[in-house]
């Protein structure tokens, strides 16, 4: 404790502050508050710059055509990105279906059941998993499918598998932290009533942690929705709409944007516009998902007293 606290509990902090040593502590407090606020402003600068640039460069590329047409048969500046939008939604959805159950169950294992070697190994290796370069995840997914399906295979689901490798550690880490914070006295109370462990987890721990879990999943989704490198080598490039992740190449917004930027052809500005518009759409998708998640969070947030 501070040596400057001489007696217990004067109810009003200002009384203490007005006692001699106060101005130094108050000054430090103000300084830290200013620094903290300043840090936030600093963090907001790149955000605003980014959003501004994306909006500025992306809005010219937006049109009804962008959202409703695919690029099949599109020459020059024509065509849209509906196939890319659909592709991103499908690939990310499949990746989530793979990652979220596995990730949360693994976090439950780590937090509620785990012991001994398996637990330590899992903890350690999940950390390692966070460092897999995104392109290596893609190469691995490609090699895996090539083993069974032959060379040159390109599928939407391959992209999902590659993205899951990147999503899972984030889901596990944040879920684990969230579950850890659920106080043990809630669990103990449940056990004292004779609740079986699995019911304790599903009916008490998970709902309490629900909001934090959703945040973790949202962060993981945001992380992968803009990933390009792994998808370049797994999902291929195609200009037609494809809604089947298990059959054929599937375009997606990230690869679409990358291609438009890298090989714009003679109509350079139109292609660049499309690339930025695709980025804008990606962010919009995540924003919408985030808003939904935030509403859920607000509804189910429980504070621990």
């Amino acid at each position, binding site marked *: 404790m*501070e040596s400057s606290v001489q007696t*217990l*509990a*004067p109810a009003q*902090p200002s009384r203490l*502050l007005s006692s001699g040593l106060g101005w130094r502590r108050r000054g430090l*407090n103000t300084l*830290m508050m200013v620094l903290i606020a300043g*840090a*936030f402003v*600093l*963090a907001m600068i790149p*955000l605003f*710059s*980014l959003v501004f*640039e*994306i909006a500025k460069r992306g809005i010219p590329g937006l049109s009804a055509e962008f959202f409703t047409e695919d690029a099949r048969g599109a020459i020059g500046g024509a065509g849209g990105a509906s196939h890319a939008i659909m592709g991103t939604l499908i690939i990310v959805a499949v990746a989530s279906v793979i990652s979220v159950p*596995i990730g949360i*169950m*693994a976090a439950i*294992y*780590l937090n509620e*059941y785990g012991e001994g070697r*398996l637990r330590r190994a899992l903890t350690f290796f*999940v*950390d*390692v*998993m*966070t*460092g*897999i*370069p*995104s*392109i*290596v995840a893609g190469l*691995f997914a490609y090699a*895996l499918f090539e083993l069974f399906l032959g060379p040159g295979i390109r599928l939407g689901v391959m992209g999902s598998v590659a993205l899951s490798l990147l999503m899972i550690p984030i889901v*596990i880490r944040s879920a684990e*932290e969230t579950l850890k*914070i659920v106080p043990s006295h809630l669990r103990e109370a449940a056990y004292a*009533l004779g609740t*079986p462990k*699995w019911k304790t987890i*599903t009916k008490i721990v998970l709902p309490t942690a629900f909001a*934090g879990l959703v*945040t973790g999943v949202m962060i993981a989704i945001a992380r992968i929705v*803009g990933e*390009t490198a792994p998808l370049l080598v797994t999902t291929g490039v195609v200009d037609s709409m494809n809604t089947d992740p298990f059959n054929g190449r599937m375009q997606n*917004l990230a690869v679409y*944007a990358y291609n438009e*930027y890298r090989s714009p052809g003679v109509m350079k500005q139109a292609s660049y516009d499309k690339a930025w518009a695709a980025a804008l759409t990606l*962010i919009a998708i*995540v*924003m919408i998902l*985030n808003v939904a998640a935030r509403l859920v*969070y*607000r509804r189910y947030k429980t*504070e*621990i*007293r």
Partner: protein
Amino acid sequence: MASVDPTTNAGQLLAAASGGRRRLGDRVFSRTAVLAALTILILLAGVAIFLLFEGFPALTASASELPEGKSFIDYVAPLAFGTVLAAALAALVAVPLAVAVALFITHVAPPRIALTLGYLVDLLAAIPSIIYGLWGIFVLGPATVPVMKWLEEKLGFIPIFEGPASVTGRTMLVAGLVLAVMILPIVSAVAREAFAQTPRRLQEGAQALGATRWETIRMTVLPFGRSSVISGAMLGLGRALGETMAVTIILSVSGAVTFNLISQANPSTIAANIALNFPESSGLAINALIATGLVLFAITLVTNMGARWIIARQQGE
């Protein structure tokens, strides 16, 4: 428990407790959890095996067969150096900033807008990595050119500012800063959850004893959230070590191993190197690239071992 009221929830649970149903439910659930854990380990083992298998030919090949005619160690050392440099730079900038941002949202800002602010920070995570790359070369890079010129003039005697300052701004400094912005939302989100869940009792106790807001934070929130922050930092560091597209687009890769942050001659990172060279590579060159991926795997392993050790030591105190 003689008489149990079957209409209450607790009563029903107690009634079921003595039955075999509980054991089955528990068994199924715990087995599923273990299965999930094993699946992940298997997946990771698969990745490791893949890297080893594909990378092995390059590890045992002689220098003349490998790209650039160097031995594998000579090939990967500058890349490893660049990877660690960029990631360290990013972490150094991002972690303190993320902690401050998390504190701001949970303890300084008015509670009504805290959620919106958190949402804004999380938006940074949604931006695709290529866009970060493009932002780096179109906006941040050119903006830093005058700053780097100034650094070279005034502080050029320090090796990291030796220069000559790049005219396009596509330097290690900019790459590190962009990486920092990319990992900020991850670290801050994890920190935020922890800080927000600091038990009120602890905080109110400190306030009752006359602590200022900063002192309360320092005494209760920060210690409570410490392991979460380190966890979040690990997540962010992992992301920075493995980030591919942004670095590929931004960094002017000219092969030099140097601490000079503001020049155009920079070492590449392992991930960016794979992305840059994989398309045109074939044969042993591909094996070499995958072997560098293995090295990155090892680097992440070592970094995480270090972090776990730090956490363990702190918890032992």
